[in-house]
Protein backbone atom coordinates (compact mmCIF):
# COMPACT_ATOMS: atom_id res chain seq x y z
CA UNK A 1 0.00 0.00 0.00
CA UNK A 2 1.11 3.53 -0.71
CA UNK A 3 2.52 5.31 2.30
CA UNK A 4 0.42 8.05 3.81
CA UNK A 5 2.06 11.33 4.75
CA UNK A 6 0.87 14.34 6.70
CA UNK A 7 3.03 16.60 4.59
CA UNK A 8 4.42 16.29 1.06
CA UNK A 9 7.24 13.74 1.12
CA UNK A 10 8.65 11.34 -1.44
CA UNK A 11 10.48 8.07 -0.88
CA UNK A 12 11.74 5.53 -3.39
CA UNK A 13 13.15 6.59 -6.73
CA UNK A 14 11.01 8.22 -9.38
CA UNK A 15 12.35 7.47 -12.83
CA UNK A 16 11.47 8.16 -16.42
CA UNK A 17 12.31 5.51 -18.98
CA UNK A 18 14.49 7.81 -21.04
CA UNK A 19 15.83 4.91 -23.12
CA UNK A 20 12.49 5.12 -24.92
CA UNK A 21 13.33 8.56 -26.23
CA UNK A 22 16.27 7.42 -28.31
CA UNK A 23 16.17 7.73 -32.09
CA UNK A 24 19.87 6.93 -32.48
CA UNK A 25 22.24 4.93 -30.35
CA UNK A 26 26.01 4.99 -29.84
CA UNK A 27 28.12 2.07 -30.92
CA UNK A 28 31.65 1.73 -29.59
CA UNK A 29 34.37 0.32 -31.83
CA UNK A 30 36.84 -1.36 -29.50
CA UNK A 31 39.46 -1.60 -32.21
CA UNK A 32 39.81 2.18 -32.13
CA UNK A 33 39.04 2.81 -28.45
CA UNK A 34 42.01 3.62 -26.22
CA UNK A 35 39.92 3.45 -23.00
CA UNK A 36 40.52 7.10 -22.19
CA UNK A 37 37.17 7.58 -20.43
CA UNK A 38 36.19 10.83 -22.13
CA UNK A 39 32.84 9.33 -23.11
CA UNK A 40 32.10 8.45 -19.48
CA UNK A 41 33.19 11.88 -18.35
CA UNK A 42 30.74 13.65 -20.65
CA UNK A 43 27.76 11.34 -20.89
CA UNK A 44 24.95 13.40 -19.33
CA UNK A 45 22.95 10.33 -18.36
CA UNK A 46 25.76 8.30 -16.81
CA UNK A 47 25.21 5.61 -19.42
CA UNK A 48 28.88 4.84 -19.89
CA UNK A 49 30.09 2.30 -17.35
CA UNK A 50 33.58 1.31 -16.37
CA UNK A 51 35.25 -1.74 -14.90
CA UNK A 52 38.82 -2.95 -14.46
CA UNK A 53 40.15 -5.07 -17.26
CA UNK A 54 42.84 -5.52 -19.89
CA UNK A 55 43.53 -2.48 -21.97
CA UNK A 56 45.15 -3.15 -25.33
CA UNK A 57 48.00 -0.76 -26.02
CA UNK A 58 49.08 0.53 -29.45
CA UNK A 59 52.26 -1.59 -29.32
CA UNK A 60 50.19 -4.71 -28.88
CA UNK A 61 50.88 -5.12 -25.17
CA UNK A 62 48.18 -4.92 -22.54
CA UNK A 63 47.88 -3.16 -19.20
CA UNK A 64 45.38 -3.36 -16.34
CA UNK A 65 43.06 -0.38 -16.31
CA UNK A 66 39.60 0.99 -16.71
CA UNK A 67 37.58 -0.40 -19.58
CA UNK A 68 34.50 1.42 -20.82
CA UNK A 69 31.20 0.13 -22.15
CA UNK A 70 27.88 1.76 -22.94
CA UNK A 71 24.71 0.64 -21.18
CA UNK A 72 21.80 1.73 -23.33
CA UNK A 73 19.11 1.38 -20.63
CA UNK A 74 18.67 5.12 -20.08
CA UNK A 75 20.85 6.44 -22.94
CA UNK A 76 18.99 9.28 -24.67
CA UNK A 77 21.06 9.03 -27.84
CA UNK A 78 22.38 12.59 -27.66
CA UNK A 79 25.60 11.86 -29.54
CA UNK A 80 27.82 13.69 -27.05
CA UNK A 81 30.00 10.62 -26.53
CA UNK A 82 30.50 10.21 -30.28
CA UNK A 83 31.27 13.91 -30.70
CA UNK A 84 33.73 14.01 -27.80
CA UNK A 85 35.57 10.73 -28.36
CA UNK A 86 39.10 11.70 -29.42
CA UNK A 87 39.54 8.44 -31.38
CA UNK A 88 36.27 8.60 -33.34
CA UNK A 89 35.58 5.22 -31.80
CA UNK A 90 31.86 5.87 -31.29
CA UNK A 91 29.35 6.11 -34.12
CA UNK A 92 25.69 6.98 -33.81
CA UNK A 93 23.38 4.47 -35.48
CA UNK A 94 19.68 4.84 -36.27
CA UNK A 95 17.40 3.20 -33.78
CA UNK A 96 15.15 0.68 -35.52
CA UNK A 97 12.82 -0.08 -32.66
CA UNK A 98 9.96 2.10 -33.99
Amino acid sequence: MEKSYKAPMGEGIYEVNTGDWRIQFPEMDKTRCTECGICLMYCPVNSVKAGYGEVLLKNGNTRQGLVYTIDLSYCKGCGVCAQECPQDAITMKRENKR
Partner: protein
Amino acid sequence: MTVMEKLAFKEDMISPGISACIGCNVELTLRTVMKILGPNTVFAVPPGCMGGVGVVGWNKQSGAKPPVFFPLLDNTASMLAGIRLGYNAQGRTDINVVAFAGDGATVDAGFQALSGAAERGDRILYICYDNEGYMNTGYQRSSSTSKWAWTSTTPVNASGGGGKRQHKKDFPVIMAMHDIPYMATASPAYIPDLVAKVEKAMSVTEGLAYIHIYNPCLTGWGIPSDQSIEAARKAVQSRYFPLFESSRRKIRITRKVKEPIPVKAYIQASKKFRHLDDEQIQELQELTDERYRFLEAMEQVSQEG
Protein backbone atom coordinates in the same frame (compact mmCIF):
# COMPACT_ATOMS: atom_id res chain seq x y z
CA MET B 1 41.23 7.85 -6.40
CA THR B 2 41.87 9.44 -9.79
CA VAL B 3 39.22 11.72 -11.23
CA MET B 4 38.27 9.00 -13.70
CA GLU B 5 37.87 6.47 -10.88
CA LYS B 6 35.68 8.90 -8.96
CA LEU B 7 33.48 9.49 -11.99
CA ALA B 8 33.38 5.78 -12.77
CA PHE B 9 32.78 4.35 -9.32
CA LYS B 10 31.19 6.94 -7.09
CA GLU B 11 27.50 6.30 -6.87
CA ASP B 12 25.19 8.27 -9.13
CA MET B 13 22.98 10.11 -6.65
CA ILE B 14 20.28 11.06 -9.14
CA SER B 15 17.47 8.92 -10.53
CA PRO B 16 18.78 7.10 -13.63
CA GLY B 17 15.94 8.55 -15.70
CA ILE B 18 15.17 12.24 -15.46
CA SER B 19 13.49 14.11 -18.26
CA ALA B 20 16.15 16.73 -19.00
CA CYS B 21 16.47 17.46 -22.72
CA ILE B 22 18.55 15.02 -24.75
CA GLY B 23 22.22 15.93 -24.27
CA CYS B 24 21.59 18.52 -21.53
CA ASN B 25 24.89 19.47 -19.92
CA VAL B 26 23.10 20.58 -16.74
CA GLU B 27 22.10 16.95 -16.22
CA LEU B 28 25.76 16.04 -16.64
CA THR B 29 26.80 18.77 -14.22
CA LEU B 30 24.27 17.71 -11.60
CA ARG B 31 25.21 14.03 -11.76
CA THR B 32 28.91 14.86 -11.60
CA VAL B 33 28.60 17.28 -8.69
CA MET B 34 26.38 14.93 -6.72
CA LYS B 35 28.71 11.97 -7.23
CA ILE B 36 31.44 14.00 -5.60
CA LEU B 37 29.21 15.24 -2.78
CA GLY B 38 27.94 11.76 -1.98
CA PRO B 39 25.04 10.57 0.15
CA ASN B 40 25.72 12.62 3.27
CA THR B 41 24.18 15.61 1.56
CA VAL B 42 20.96 17.57 1.67
CA PHE B 43 20.32 19.50 -1.49
CA ALA B 44 17.94 22.15 -2.67
CA VAL B 45 16.70 22.34 -6.24
CA PRO B 46 14.58 25.45 -6.68
CA PRO B 47 12.01 25.80 -9.44
CA GLY B 48 13.87 25.64 -12.75
CA CYS B 49 15.02 23.05 -15.23
CA MET B 50 16.33 20.47 -12.79
CA GLY B 51 13.26 20.73 -10.55
CA GLY B 52 11.04 20.54 -13.61
CA VAL B 53 12.69 17.39 -14.97
CA GLY B 54 11.98 15.42 -11.80
CA VAL B 55 15.06 15.68 -9.62
CA VAL B 56 12.96 16.47 -6.54
CA GLY B 57 10.54 13.73 -7.51
CA TRP B 58 6.90 13.29 -8.33
CA ASN B 59 3.99 12.74 -5.95
CA LYS B 60 5.28 10.33 -3.30
CA GLN B 61 8.59 9.48 -4.97
CA SER B 62 11.98 11.15 -4.95
CA GLY B 63 14.15 11.96 -7.97
CA ALA B 64 17.36 11.59 -6.01
CA LYS B 65 18.94 9.30 -3.45
CA PRO B 66 19.97 11.87 -0.82
CA PRO B 67 17.37 14.12 0.78
CA VAL B 68 16.31 16.75 -1.77
CA PHE B 69 13.68 19.48 -1.69
CA PHE B 70 12.19 22.38 -3.55
CA PRO B 71 12.96 25.70 -1.95
CA LEU B 72 10.97 28.64 -3.26
CA LEU B 73 12.44 30.42 -6.29
CA ASP B 74 13.75 33.18 -4.06
CA ASN B 75 14.78 31.55 -0.79
CA THR B 76 17.19 28.73 -1.62
CA ALA B 77 20.11 30.16 0.36
CA SER B 78 17.96 31.12 3.37
CA MET B 79 16.31 27.73 3.63
CA LEU B 80 19.71 26.06 3.42
CA ALA B 81 21.10 28.42 6.04
CA GLY B 82 18.24 27.36 8.31
CA ILE B 83 18.94 23.70 7.62
CA ARG B 84 22.56 24.28 8.59
CA LEU B 85 21.47 25.93 11.85
CA GLY B 86 19.09 23.07 12.53
CA TYR B 87 21.89 20.53 12.11
CA ASN B 88 24.25 22.68 14.18
CA ALA B 89 21.67 22.67 16.96
CA GLN B 90 21.82 18.87 16.85
CA GLY B 91 25.61 18.73 16.66
CA ARG B 92 25.57 17.26 13.15
CA THR B 93 28.29 19.25 11.41
CA ASP B 94 29.39 16.72 8.79
CA ILE B 95 26.42 17.04 6.41
CA ASN B 96 26.87 18.81 3.06
CA VAL B 97 24.17 21.47 2.73
CA VAL B 98 23.97 22.29 -0.95
CA ALA B 99 22.06 24.33 -3.52
CA PHE B 100 21.77 23.35 -7.14
CA ALA B 101 20.00 26.37 -8.53
CA GLY B 102 19.49 28.00 -11.89
CA ASP B 103 20.50 31.56 -12.67
CA GLY B 104 16.95 32.89 -12.24
CA ALA B 105 16.81 31.55 -8.69
CA THR B 106 20.31 32.87 -8.03
CA VAL B 107 21.12 36.13 -9.78
CA ASP B 108 17.54 37.47 -9.90
CA ALA B 109 14.88 36.35 -7.42
CA GLY B 110 17.21 34.60 -4.98
CA PHE B 111 19.93 37.22 -4.86
CA GLN B 112 18.98 38.84 -1.56
CA ALA B 113 18.81 35.47 0.17
CA LEU B 114 22.17 34.43 -1.26
CA SER B 115 23.88 37.74 -0.56
CA GLY B 116 22.57 37.66 3.01
CA ALA B 117 23.82 34.13 3.57
CA ALA B 118 27.22 35.03 2.09
CA GLU B 119 27.52 38.10 4.32
CA ARG B 120 26.51 36.21 7.46
CA GLY B 121 28.86 33.39 6.62
CA ASP B 122 26.23 30.67 6.64
CA ARG B 123 28.00 27.43 5.93
CA ILE B 124 26.42 26.25 2.71
CA LEU B 125 27.66 25.21 -0.69
CA TYR B 126 25.75 27.07 -3.36
CA ILE B 127 26.03 25.92 -6.96
CA CYS B 128 24.45 27.94 -9.72
CA TYR B 129 23.94 26.40 -13.13
CA ASP B 130 23.80 29.39 -15.40
CA ASN B 131 21.87 28.62 -18.57
CA GLU B 132 21.11 32.29 -19.07
CA GLY B 133 17.41 32.37 -18.43
CA TYR B 134 14.18 30.84 -17.18
CA MET B 135 14.47 27.77 -19.36
CA ASN B 136 11.95 25.52 -17.65
CA THR B 137 9.15 27.97 -18.43
CA GLY B 138 10.12 28.59 -22.04
CA TYR B 139 13.38 30.58 -22.21
CA GLN B 140 12.58 33.96 -20.65
CA ARG B 141 15.45 36.37 -20.03
CA SER B 142 17.22 36.72 -16.71
CA SER B 143 19.81 39.26 -15.63
CA SER B 144 22.35 36.57 -16.49
CA THR B 145 21.31 36.44 -20.15
CA SER B 146 23.93 37.70 -22.59
CA LYS B 147 23.40 40.98 -24.39
CA TRP B 148 21.57 40.76 -27.72
CA ALA B 149 20.46 37.18 -27.07
CA TRP B 150 17.03 36.13 -28.22
CA THR B 151 14.76 34.94 -25.41
CA SER B 152 10.97 34.60 -25.38
CA THR B 153 10.75 37.91 -23.51
CA THR B 154 13.46 39.65 -25.54
CA PRO B 155 12.21 38.64 -28.96
CA VAL B 156 13.77 39.52 -32.28
CA ASN B 157 11.80 41.17 -35.05
CA ALA B 158 11.76 40.33 -38.76
CA SER B 159 14.60 42.69 -39.57
CA GLY B 160 16.83 41.17 -36.89
CA GLY B 161 16.35 43.95 -34.32
CA GLY B 162 15.67 43.20 -30.68
CA GLY B 163 17.18 40.74 -28.27
CA LYS B 164 18.25 41.51 -24.73
CA ARG B 165 19.34 45.12 -24.34
CA GLN B 166 21.64 44.73 -21.32
CA HIS B 167 24.87 42.93 -20.61
CA LYS B 168 25.07 39.74 -18.59
CA LYS B 169 25.43 40.45 -14.88
CA ASP B 170 28.98 39.63 -13.83
CA PHE B 171 27.76 37.48 -11.00
CA PRO B 172 30.88 35.46 -10.09
CA VAL B 173 32.76 38.69 -9.41
CA ILE B 174 29.86 40.00 -7.34
CA MET B 175 29.99 36.84 -5.22
CA ALA B 176 33.77 37.00 -4.91
CA MET B 177 33.43 40.55 -3.59
CA HIS B 178 31.35 39.19 -0.69
CA ASP B 179 34.71 38.05 0.72
CA ILE B 180 33.49 34.48 0.93
CA PRO B 181 36.02 31.73 1.64
CA TYR B 182 35.51 30.12 -1.74
CA MET B 183 34.12 31.20 -5.08
CA ALA B 184 34.76 29.48 -8.38
CA THR B 185 33.52 29.40 -11.92
CA ALA B 186 33.35 26.11 -13.76
CA SER B 187 32.24 24.50 -16.97
CA PRO B 188 30.83 21.09 -17.95
CA ALA B 189 33.52 21.01 -20.64
CA TYR B 190 36.24 20.95 -17.95
CA ILE B 191 35.15 18.15 -15.66
CA PRO B 192 38.40 17.52 -13.70
CA ASP B 193 38.53 21.25 -12.94
CA LEU B 194 34.89 21.16 -11.84
CA VAL B 195 35.53 18.13 -9.62
CA ALA B 196 38.52 19.82 -7.98
CA LYS B 197 36.47 22.94 -7.32
CA VAL B 198 33.58 21.03 -5.79
CA GLU B 199 36.05 19.24 -3.53
CA LYS B 200 37.59 22.55 -2.47
CA ALA B 201 34.14 23.99 -1.79
CA MET B 202 33.24 20.92 0.30
CA SER B 203 36.25 21.46 2.50
CA VAL B 204 35.13 24.96 3.50
CA THR B 205 34.20 24.85 7.18
CA GLU B 206 33.56 28.54 7.80
CA GLY B 207 31.21 30.47 5.59
CA LEU B 208 29.63 30.11 2.22
CA ALA B 209 31.18 28.51 -0.86
CA TYR B 210 29.84 29.44 -4.27
CA ILE B 211 30.37 27.81 -7.68
CA HIS B 212 29.02 29.38 -10.84
CA ILE B 213 28.80 26.93 -13.72
CA TYR B 214 28.17 28.08 -17.27
CA ASN B 215 25.76 25.70 -18.99
CA PRO B 216 24.77 26.50 -22.59
CA CYS B 217 21.15 25.36 -22.88
CA LEU B 218 20.51 23.22 -25.93
CA THR B 219 16.80 23.76 -26.29
CA GLY B 220 16.67 27.39 -25.22
CA TRP B 221 19.69 28.60 -27.13
CA GLY B 222 19.29 26.44 -30.20
CA ILE B 223 22.29 24.11 -29.98
CA PRO B 224 22.33 20.60 -31.47
CA SER B 225 22.46 17.99 -28.71
CA ASP B 226 25.86 16.58 -29.64
CA GLN B 227 27.37 20.10 -29.43
CA SER B 228 26.44 20.32 -25.74
CA ILE B 229 30.01 20.14 -24.46
CA GLU B 230 31.62 21.89 -27.42
CA ALA B 231 29.47 24.99 -26.91
CA ALA B 232 30.46 25.14 -23.25
CA ARG B 233 34.11 24.67 -24.21
CA LYS B 234 34.04 27.52 -26.71
CA ALA B 235 32.69 29.88 -24.05
CA VAL B 236 35.84 29.21 -22.06
CA GLN B 237 38.23 29.15 -25.02
CA SER B 238 37.00 32.54 -26.17
CA ARG B 239 37.40 34.00 -22.65
CA TYR B 240 33.68 34.77 -22.73
CA PHE B 241 33.36 32.71 -19.55
CA PRO B 242 36.75 32.56 -17.82
CA LEU B 243 37.49 29.84 -15.28
CA PHE B 244 38.77 31.32 -12.05
CA GLU B 245 38.46 31.02 -8.33
CA SER B 246 38.75 33.29 -5.37
CA SER B 247 39.19 32.90 -1.66
CA ARG B 248 38.51 35.87 0.59
CA ARG B 249 38.99 38.19 -2.39
CA LYS B 250 42.24 36.57 -3.61
CA ILE B 251 41.60 35.84 -7.25
CA ARG B 252 43.30 33.20 -9.36
CA ILE B 253 42.55 32.35 -12.98
CA THR B 254 42.50 28.56 -13.01
CA ARG B 255 42.57 28.19 -16.75
CA LYS B 256 44.60 30.85 -18.49
CA VAL B 257 43.44 31.33 -22.06
CA LYS B 258 46.59 32.48 -23.82
CA GLU B 259 45.31 32.38 -27.39
CA PRO B 260 41.59 32.92 -27.26
CA ILE B 261 39.34 32.00 -30.15
CA PRO B 262 37.17 34.90 -31.33
CA VAL B 263 33.94 35.41 -29.39
CA LYS B 264 32.26 35.07 -32.75
CA ALA B 265 33.22 31.39 -32.84
CA TYR B 266 31.46 30.86 -29.52
CA ILE B 267 28.42 32.89 -30.53
CA GLN B 268 27.96 30.93 -33.73
CA ALA B 269 27.27 27.80 -31.73
CA SER B 270 23.82 29.10 -30.68
CA LYS B 271 20.81 30.14 -32.69
CA LYS B 272 19.90 32.70 -30.06
CA PHE B 273 22.67 34.94 -31.43
CA ARG B 274 21.88 34.21 -35.09
CA HIS B 275 20.50 37.71 -35.75
CA LEU B 276 23.58 39.60 -34.51
CA ASP B 277 25.40 41.93 -36.90
CA ASP B 278 29.16 42.49 -36.85
CA GLU B 279 28.88 45.56 -34.69
CA GLN B 280 26.97 43.67 -32.02
CA ILE B 281 29.42 40.81 -32.12
CA GLN B 282 32.23 43.32 -31.79
CA GLU B 283 30.52 44.76 -28.71
CA LEU B 284 30.45 41.31 -27.10
CA GLN B 285 34.11 40.83 -28.04
CA GLU B 286 34.99 44.11 -26.35
CA LEU B 287 33.06 43.26 -23.22
CA THR B 288 34.83 39.91 -23.11
CA ASP B 289 38.24 41.52 -23.47
CA GLU B 290 37.42 44.12 -20.86
CA ARG B 291 36.18 41.63 -18.30
CA TYR B 292 39.17 39.38 -18.85
CA ARG B 293 41.55 42.32 -18.42
CA PHE B 294 39.76 43.23 -15.22
CA LEU B 295 40.12 39.66 -14.01
CA GLU B 296 43.84 39.57 -14.80
CA ALA B 297 44.28 42.86 -13.00
CA MET B 298 42.49 41.50 -9.95
CA GLU B 299 44.63 38.39 -10.06
CA GLN B 300 47.69 40.60 -10.23
CA VAL B 301 46.57 42.63 -7.21
CA SER B 302 45.80 39.42 -5.30
CA GLN B 303 49.33 38.14 -5.89
CA GLU B 304 50.88 41.39 -4.77
CA GLY B 305 48.74 41.51 -1.60
